[in-house]
Each structure stands twice: as structure tokens, then as C-alpha cells.
């Protein structure tokens, strides 16, 4: 391994070099940026995502409506942009929540071992026993059922939040509840390896408490796997959200989401294929791009992938 001067090694951003050597990564990043920009600028688009135009229903892509209109004459581009907002916001926030829960449970279980570990992991195992989507539907159903009732008790602020977000909050809860399992397992496995590292023993000998060891040594060294785990969770959350909305337990209509758009597109798939293809391509390309970026991140953080000469 070449020894690289330390100024070049870390200070200079690694991404430009990696991108130059990987055109696929550049395309993926560009696409994600495009999605984010479109989602952010949804309000500046010429058409409103909710305005119906019954005279121009199901019209194919044209200069007026670049991506055509849906079965109620609403502009597909505008709906796709708002849908991106919904999908991405829900996916990212629920991933953050899931990763945080996963880190907490995984780190405690992996570091403490013993009965705490057994209890935590058997719980995770039993949650795992449910098929992912089925479990999500179950939770979504319960959450939706609970939260859409007007209650005045303890849950009332949550209910308010749920109603305000057009069902988004329910999807967020569902995704967080289902996605943290993967994270907890990955973090636990990593913590078990790291806790027996000799530098952890050295820190403990020098008088470090568990908390110190965790904060200074174990969690920073877990970061690569956590990031990799997150790049697994984001696309699966997008997919799960799409699935839930497709099945009608996701966001409430008329809020557009990619999954809901695919669901309504399926109904008229044969006569108006653009209603299905556009959101489906959006979902597919987004997932692909996130995976490509996730792979690149993993290579960046995994020391065994890192080649010293590359940065110079």
C-alpha cells in the first residue's frame, strides 16, 4: 500500500476522483440531484398537482403536459414532483428514525451481550418472522385505524400530526417500525467484532468507561456499516411506501405518491400506458441510483476497498 501524504489523503474531497473513474456513479448522482430539484421546485411548475381538467383526461405526453395527464386530467409532471417529495421525505425521515433505533438496540445488544442481547435479538428475530410487506400492511392498518379516529387522549397530538400530513405520518411510523430491524442486526454484528478489538481493550485499561469506548471507538468505526445499512433502508422504504400506497394503506388521496400513482396507472394500463410507465420508471431509476451511490459509499468507507494510490 502506498503511503500518501496526509494532506492529500483526507482533506481533498474524494468524490471528484471517484466520479471521474465511474461514469455510472456520476449518472446516478445526477439523477438523484434531478429528482431532488424537481421535488423541491414542484410549486413552480406550470400546473398544480391537484387541479383537475376533466376535458383533458388521460391525454398522452404533449408540449402542454410533458408527461401527459392522469384520469382526472391532472398534470403528471406536477404529480410526479409532489410524489417525489412525499416518497423521498417519508423514505429519508423514516430511514433516519430506523437507523437511530437500530443503532441504539444493536449497539446495546452487541456491547452488553448476555441476556440483554438475547432479549433484544429474539425480539428482532420474531419481528423478522413476518414478511416485510405483510408486517408493514399490518402496522399501517393499525396506525391508520388508530390515528384516523378522533381521540382526545394521549394520542391526540399524534393524531393531529397524522391528519395534517395527509397520512404521511402513518407511513413514516410504519416504515420506521419495520426498517430498524436490519439496522439493529448489522450494527450489533459490527459492535461484537469491534468490542474485542485490542484498541478497545487498551482504552478500557487506560480507564475508559463503556460510554467513552462506545462514543470514541465503537460507533465511529461502525459508521461505514451504518451508512451502508442506510443505503439499503432508503430504497426499501421507498419501495415499501409505494407498496403501501399501491394497496391503499399509504398516503391518503388526493395526495400523490409514486406508489399511489402506479396503483391508479395499473387500472388503465392497456389503454393509457403512460400513467403506469412514468411513475414506475421514476421509482425504478431512483432505487437504482441510490444503490449505485450506496455501493460507492461502501467502497469509500471500507478500508479493504481503499487504495492508497488513488487519491494522489
Amino acid at each position, binding site marked *: *500500500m502506498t*503511503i*500518501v501524504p*496526509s494532506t492529500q*489523503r483526507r482533506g481533498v474531497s474524494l468524490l471528484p476522483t471517484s466520479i471521474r473513474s465511474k461514469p455510472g456513479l456520476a449518472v446516478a448522482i445526477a439523477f438523484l440531484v434531478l429528482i431532488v430539484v424537481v421535488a423541491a421546485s414542484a410549486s413552480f411548475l406550470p400546473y398544480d398537482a391537484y387541479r383537475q381538467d376533466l376535458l383533458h383526461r388521460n391525454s398522452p405526453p404533449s408540449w402542454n403536459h410533458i408527461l401527459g395527464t392522469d384520469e382526472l386530467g391532472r398534470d403528471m409532471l406536477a404529480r410526479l414532483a409532489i410524489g417525489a417529495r412525499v416518497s423521498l421525505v417519508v423514505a429519508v425521515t423514516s430511514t433516519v428514525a430506523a437507523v437511530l433505533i437500530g443503532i441504539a438496540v444493536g449497539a446495546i445488544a452487541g456491547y452488553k451481550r448476555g441476556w440483554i442481547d438475547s432479549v433484544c435479538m429474539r425480539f428482532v428475530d420474531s419481528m423478522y418472522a413476518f414478511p416485510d410487506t405483510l408486517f408493514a400492511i399490518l402496522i399501517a392498518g393499525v396506525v391508520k385505524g388508530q390515528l384516523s379516529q378522533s381521540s382526545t387522549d394521549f394520542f391526540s397530538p399524534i393524531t393531529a400530526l397524522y391528519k395534517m400530513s395527509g397520512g404521511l405520518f402513518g407511513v413514516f411510523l410504519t416504515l420506521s417500525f419495520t426498517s430498524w430491524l436490519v439496522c439493529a442486526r448489522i450494527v450489533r454484528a459490527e459492535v461484537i467484532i469491534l468490542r474485542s*478489538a*485490542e*484498541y478497545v*481493550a*487498551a*482504552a*478500557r*485499561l*487506560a*480507564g*475508559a*468507561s463503556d460510554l*467513552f469506548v462506545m462514543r*470514541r*471507538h465503537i460507533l*465511529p*468505526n461502525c459508521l461505514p456499516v451504518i451508512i451502508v445499512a442506510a443505503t439499503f433502508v432508503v430504497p426499501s422504504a421507498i419501495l415499501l411506501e409505494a407498496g403501501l400506497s399501491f394497496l391503499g394503506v399509504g398516503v391518503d388521496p388526493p395526495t400523490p405518491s409514486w406508489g399511489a400513482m402506479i396503483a391508479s396507472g395499473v387500472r388503465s394500463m392497456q389503454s393509457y400506458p403512460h400513467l403506469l410507465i412514468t411513475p414506475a420508471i421514476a421509482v425504478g431509476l431512483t432505487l437504482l441510483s441510490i444503490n449505485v451511490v450506496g455501493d460507492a459509499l461502501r467502497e469509500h468507507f471500507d*478500508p479493504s476497498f481503499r487504495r*492508497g494510490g488513488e487519491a494522489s
Partner: protein
Amino acid sequence: MSELLKQIGETTNNAGARLGDTILEARDLHVIFGTGVRAVDGINLKIYRGETLGVVGESGCGKSTLGRTLCMLEAPTGGSVALNGLPISDMKGSSLREARKSLQMVFQDPYSSLDPRQRAGEIIGEPLLLAGVDKKQRQSRVNELLDLVSIGASGYAKFPREFSGGQRQRIGIARSLAANPEIIICDEPVSALDVSVQAQIVNLLVSLQRKLNLTYVFISHDLAVVRQMANRVAVMYLGRIVELADADKIFAAPRHPYTAALLSAVPRMLTSSAKRKPISLPGDPPSPMHLPPGCRFQARCWLRQKLGSPDVCSAVDPMLSGTGDHQAACHFQEHVDAQRGAQNA
């Protein structure tokens, strides 16, 4: 030396005493793992201030576990460890952390012993950070330590991966020295290094011992290195110390057949007058989960064969015994030296 060093030095001098008193003592130490493996099986050991105690034995004999237990990284399942008279094996949490400050360890693997995400300066300064030393003093002390182990202050901001194996081990040594320990447990500190680098590290450890009046427990499977470093040697076999004596005595006239076999396996120059054919030990050590009754070395013992398999070997578990400071756990220890020469006759 900085003021800080003096301060800590003074406190240890007040607590400590003359050269040669017991600094670390293990009494009837047992470590039995959950699987039933008796990694350390009844060890009594005194380590005296200023000495280097070599611990040798083959892989899996429990020498590393002994090292980790002596500094309470591994909790013993029985027996006790006392550091400067304080029973650290009964302590927990912050009192344990406080009590064993004068005990440090140098590890075997120079790769896993340094946190890859931290710079050399942060790694070496960590014990000081934990001791509550402020940043400025920490930096000057770390630079001092970097000089002491011949890395130089230029290494301060580098990451472990920018150093070679030998340099990494120097950083590990510098870290162990940071909080001015009295005793350092070296767990195979040179076995992962090239032979030429091994010599440098051994020399560094020896010169540090002289400069800083350190006590070493030097764990190794390399008899040549132990011979160079140690004043006293403990030979371990299956979780027990089978022979314990001054280094020159053990190398000149071993009293345990296992030690004799180990010594005969050290490669020698062809011209050496003391040339002997190696004594080969048949088979593997018995499983540490199911030990035979009597002596745990009996099945592989060349001396027992030579003596016509006396019953006592398979009936009575020999304890450490012997004249003066030279102790061995063998019923026929007085025969070992005479018989090993005749081994191949």
C-alpha cells in the same frame, strides 16, 4: 521530562517501595470459559518490581488469557489478582479503573491495537485524556513519547495505516507509557513483526525498562526473545505453570520434561557445542475441557516413557515444587536434565 511526568512519577514513588517487592500477585487464578475450557487452571504467581517475567508456552496454553486476566480485561472465575497489594479482581467500574492505572498492556497485533480512525497523537494521548490532563500538556507529553519511541513529532497527525508494523508497535508502546505505568504486560509484542524489526522493538523495550524503571510481563512463544528479555521465566502448559525459575537456570538446566522439549526445539547454529537433536512430543495436548487424571503432560511425556511409565504420573497431579527459586511441576524433575542429554543416545 515534563512536569507532568514528575508529578505522576512522584505519586507512584510514594506508593511504591524498594526494588524487588511484589508488584503484581496472582493467587490460585482460574479462568474457565463457558464452553468448559480451563484456559487458566490454578496459577500462583508473584511478579517483582523491576523484573521481566517471561511467560512461554505453545499456542492455546492460556498464556494470553493469563495476561488479560492479570490486568482484569478478562474476569477470573476463581482466585484473585492483587496490584500493589490492592485486590483488583474484587473491584468493578470506576474503582477498578482507578486502581489499575499503573498497569498497562502492549498488544500482539499492531493492526487491531490502534484505532484506524484516530491519529497517532490522539491514540497515544488517550490515557492522558482519560486521566483528565488538559490539551496543551497532553500534546507536549505525546510529543515527548513520540520521541521516546523514535517516531518523532512528525508522526503526531498521521493515521495508523500510514505507519509500518514496527512503527505501529512503537505507537502502541508509547500509548502504554503515556500514563506512567509501573508494570506493562506485553502480550506477544513482537510475534507479528519481521525478525529485524523484532530486534528493534525488543531493544526499545529493554532501554525503556532501564530509563523508566518498568516491570514487564513478557508473553511469548519465542524462546530466543524471552531468553534475551527475561530475568525469570514461567513455562505454561494447558493453563498451568509447569516450571518457574530464573532465566539462566531454566535455559541451562530445565527441570520439566516439557521445558526440555521446548528448549531442544530452538534452532541452533551447527557449530554450537551444545547441539542436541530435538525431543519430539507425540500428538497434541489433550483437550482443555477433558483433562486426564494425574499429570496433564503424561500422554506426551518423553521422560515418563523413558522411566517405564510410573504409576504416579497418571495418579497424582504434580504441583510446583523444587529447591529454592527453581520450581517445576514434575514428579521426576531431578531426572530431566540428565535424561535429556541421553535422549537420543
